Structure formats: C-alpha cells, structure tokens
C-alpha cells in the first residue's frame, strides 16, 4: 500500500517540543518517524532538533532517540546498528537526522539556525546570515550551496534522494523506500526555517513548494548508479518572486538575481543531460 496522508501512522513520535512556529525541520522529523514507525532508533547531533526535543525532564521522542556529538551522527548511528546487531536484534530502523550513515535524513534549513542563523555549507548564494551580512561591500553569502546529494551519491550507496517538506507525499514515499533498502541511505529534505529565512510562520510549506516550482531545488533519486528526476516543472515559476518574499534575499540586485537564475539554468542543463 502506497504511503500517503491517509495511510500514514496516526501515532505521534515527536511532540511537546519547543521548535519555532512553522519549523520545517520538525515537520520533516515528525513525518519521517511516522513512516519509520515505533522501532526507529534516532540519532540527532547537537543542533535545532536536539535543542528543542531533549530538555530534561521534557523528552519529546516517543521512540528511542539519542543526541550525538556535533560531528558524530554517522559514527554513533553505526555503533547503534552494530550494537543491536551484535545482540541479535534486527527489527529496528536506525535513522540519523543530519550528516551521513544508516538511513540519514538531512533536514536542510540552509544555515546554522540553532545558534542564530550563521552561514553553513548549505547556505545558498546571496543569502544574508549573521556571519554573511549584506552590506555595501559584500552582499550576503558569496559561495554556492554545496551539492550534498550528489556528493553522497558519489559514494555509490544503494539509495539517495532529495525532497522538500512542500511535497510531503514525495518525501514520505522516499522515507518508506529507504526503510526497505539495506545499507546506507540518504535523504536530503529541504525544510524552510521561517525565523532564519524571514517568511511568515504559516508560509513554510508554501515556500518549500515554491523553491521546487521555480527550479532552485529539485526532487530526485539516486539508485543503482542512476539519477532520476521525480518532478519536472512545465515552466519555472518566477525566481525573483521566490527570492524577494524572503527577508534574507531582500538586498539582492537584479544582477544578483540574474546570476542565481543563470546558475539554476546550468544546473537544469546538467539534470537534463544526466538524470532520467
């Protein structure tokens, strides 16, 4: 039975936490845990989801969950898997929410939001953060967003995918698929942060759709050494409309937007040539 909003597990595994209103990351975690079910063992590094979900005595995961060190998600996840396997336990799903290892889900909010909106390797070109201020001399982040999906796929793992909380059915389907594949799986889900992006708290899902519709993000999978595109917008929606509605991009000039549009087109040329 295909997983969708109707067939989704009604049990909640992530609730009572103190994430910001409209948090895309908590939506991704909540939905992924519903798909993975009660035998999920989650490893989360120090970051937003651990900061909002693990405050003793208010512990917010209904399944087994643990915070790892900041750089230790994959290694701790490996230890959890090995430790359970060594005890003959096999009916579990080890999942990391960040980085890479088991099933790893990277909720991408495009900056270090937990510490107050600093530039990360996933911050897109042009975005204003507290460490890439937009001033007269430098207009926000000068580096392009790192292509984590294809970097991870280059390791030849059995399954990697991109997703967006704006297209939840697609995300749920990918988590379900990853759950049933053996080995290391990676899902990179774009999860807007209203606080960091400067949009209204009820616009999270809408803007997570729009970023896909305007072509600045894409829904794809990597399997058996091949890339597949899951959604091809017939015509891209307006990039400048997507950018201008977020305060982190408010300072961008027409030339900046031209640069962003050009790099989008180059990316899609690559996708058209290399993705099924």
């Amino acid at each position, binding site marked *: 039975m295909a997983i969708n909003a109707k067939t989704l597990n009604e049990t909640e595994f992530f609730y009572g936490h103190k994430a910001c209103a409209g948090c895309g990351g908590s939506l991704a975690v909540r939905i992924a845990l519903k798909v993975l079910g*009660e*035998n999920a*063992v989650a*490893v989360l590094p120090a970051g937003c989801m*651990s*900061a909002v*979900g*693990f*405050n*003793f*005595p208010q*512990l*917010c*995961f*209904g*399944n*087994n*969950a*643990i*915070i*790892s*060190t900041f*750089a*230790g998600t*994959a*290694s*701790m*996840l*490996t*230890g*959890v*898997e*090995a*430790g*359970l*396997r*060594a*005890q003959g*336990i096999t*009916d*579990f799903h080890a999942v990391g929410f960040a980085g890479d290892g088991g099933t790893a889900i990277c909720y991408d909010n495009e900056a270090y939001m937990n510490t107050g909106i600093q530039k990360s390797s996933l911050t897109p070109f042009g975005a204003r953060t507290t460490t890439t201020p937009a001033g007269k001399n430098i207009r926000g982040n000068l580096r392009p967003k790192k292509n984590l999906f294809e970097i991870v796929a280059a390791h030849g793992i059995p399954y990697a995918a991109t997703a967006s909380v704006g297209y939840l059915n697609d995300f749920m389907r990918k988590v379900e698929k990853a759950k049933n594949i053996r080995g290391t799986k990676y899902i990179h889900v774009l999860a807007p942060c209203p606080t960091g992006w400067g949009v209204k708290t009820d616009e999270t899902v809408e803007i997570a759709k729009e970023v896909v519709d305007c072509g600045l993000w894409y829904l794809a999978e990597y399997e058996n050494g091949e890339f597949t595109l899951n959604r091809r917008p017939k015509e891209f929606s307006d990039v400048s409309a997507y950018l201008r509605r977020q305060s982190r991009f408010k300072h961008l000039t027409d030339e900046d937007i031209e640069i962003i549009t050009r790099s989008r087109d180059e990316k899609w040329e690559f996708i058209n040539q290399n993705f099924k």
Partner: protein
Amino acid sequence: MAKKFLSGNEAFAYGVRLARPQVISAYPITPQTIVVEKLSEFVEDGSLNAEFIHVESEHSALSCAMGASSVGARAFTATSSQGLLYMAECLPYAAGGRFPIVMMNANRSTALPWNIYGDQRDSISQLDSGWIQAYACNAQEALDLALMSFYIAEHKDVSTPFMANLDGFVLTHTYEVVDVPTAEQADAFLPKYQTDNKMDLQKPRNLAFSAGPDTNTYFKYREHLGILNAYKIIDEAEERFAKIFGRRYTGLTESYRTEDADYILITLGSLSGLVREVVDELRKEGSRVGLLRLRYLRPFPNEEIAATVKNAKAVAVLEKDISFGNEGTVYTNVNSALQKAKLRIPSSDYIGGLGGRNISKEEIKIIFDELEQQQSTVKFLGIGGETNGN
C-alpha cells in the same frame, strides 16, 4: 591457564578477547596499533565474536563505541596520544552518558614537537574528563586489567568509562611471559553486561539529553559519585579475581618496602620496575627508602597515599608529565592528598621521561639522595632544569 610470550599490547588484546566485547571500533595509531591488529585477527579467526568497525577517526571510534553502549552492547576501543586528543570531545560525553566503555591508551608524547615515544601527558591531560584511569606496570597486569576494567566500569554502582594506560613501547612493545587465563575462568569472573541505561525497543528511551542550570549539578554530582564508587568496586573485582585466577592486586596503589621508609618515591606505570630495583640496592646500603606506585589516578588514592607516607621524612613524585606554568599534575594531586590528611611532609616533583627520554638508575638514586635534603622543588630530571613554582 596457559603461558605465552606476549608484548603489553598483545597481552591486553588477549584480555579483551576474554572479556568478549560485542563491538570494537578503533582507528590505528602508533604505538597502539598491535592491540587492534591482534583483535581484528581474533575476529577473523572466529575466536572473538564481535562487530569490528573500521572508523575514519578516533573521534568516530569513541562516538561509535558510545552508540553501541547506548543500546546495551559491551564496547571497546583503543588509542594513543594525538588520537586521544582528537577524540577528546567524546571523553566527557561518554562519562556523562554513563557509558561504561573500556579503552586502552598507549601512553605517548603529544605534539609539538612530534614524538612517538612514551610519556603520560596524553592521558593526564584528560584526568578531568570523568573516566577511571588505571596504569599498568607490566604485561601480566595489562592482561588482568583488561579483564577487570569491564567488571569495574560496567558495575551498576559505577557505570563509568575506563581508560587503561600502558606506557608506549616500554610496555606496549616489550615481551614477557604472561599467564593467559582460560575462557571458562574469564566467564566465571566477568558477568554479562546488563543495564537499564540503554535504548530498548520494548522500553523506548531518550538518552544523552540536555539538562539546564537547575538540574545539571545533580547529574554531575551523580557522575562524581559513580567514579568514587569505583573505590570499593575495584577491591571487589580484585578479590573476585584473586579467588578465580590466584593473582592478587592491591587496589589503587601498590607499595614496596614503605613500612619503615624515611624517603618514598611515588610514581606510576612501568617505571616502577626500575625504581623497585633501585630501592633494593639502596636498602642493601642501609638507606630506608620505599616505592609507592599509583595504579589508579581516577579515582585518586588520597587515603592510600596519606596512610603510606604518613611517617616518611620526605616524598618525591616522579612523573612523565608537566602542566605547563605550574608543575606535574600527579604532584599537584599528591600534595592535595597530603594537605587533606594534615601531613606536613616535604615533597618534590621530578619531571622525567618526556618524549621517551630514558630514566636511569643513577638518576633515581640522585632523587633519593636529594630527598634527604627534605626540600620542596620541581625539577626537570636529567637536564638540570629546576623551577620553584613562581
């Protein structure tokens, strides 16, 4: 029991095999490599049924061991020097999480300057990380410590990770005849690891959480109590060990000819073998000298030190460690023990063996000579370097 000719590293690996860890995660570093090579051979030949995880760094090695321990598996890792420092973030993490991981550390100098030989600045720099710290003096003790460390660390009253230290090269690479117990004996000694401090599919838990200013002190206090409880559990383990294996250890310290000694040298690790010889020679000449070996630095043997040296005229600490800008850390700890016991005994500190520098019998004799002057000084052994604090 079978006799084998083993290096310290190999002896420790045999001890670990007898403890049947379920997960081993490790990254190679000189002079620790042989212990993980040996263990991977044991896994390959089927004599050890463990998951051997080849991680990409020492930080990952301990992070992985914590993951295994967090689901109730017995976990082991090993490192040295730069590797220990690289995993430093994970050390208090494992202690605070009360994950009773056992780690062997091959004591080695730390860069800069680069140096692969033995001193104890690596482990002593991590004394405050919440781990039990033991120092072996020979290969037999290394093997026995490997087995006992799991018993002590995993005891429900302790639940604290355990760092077993072996002097790099001098102990890790030196061969001795070692009694290797049988698996039956080891199984009779070491119970299976059982804990409630784990993620359990039947009873889901959230572990390694945040605790704010109002609750944090309680967690840290309990962590402190856990490592203090090791005092009595070390005795319990050694008692049990003596019954099964017929070898008896002496708790947090080991004293040699100290009963009537006027001058006592305090040291740790494999160096104590040489000091023991010097004590015998000086005793023949009529000097009333003795040796106190610290087997554990955490928990710290405050009472044992005070009880042993209370009638001495002066004591000296000989250590392969320096806390720059102050003095050797073992010396600081020993002085604290003396002060708490209201003992006013002159004490001196000798910093020696840094970067593997040889310590000679003659130098140890000079220390005993200087003890008779009953001064309190801090000296760098063998280079004439003297400091008097500030």
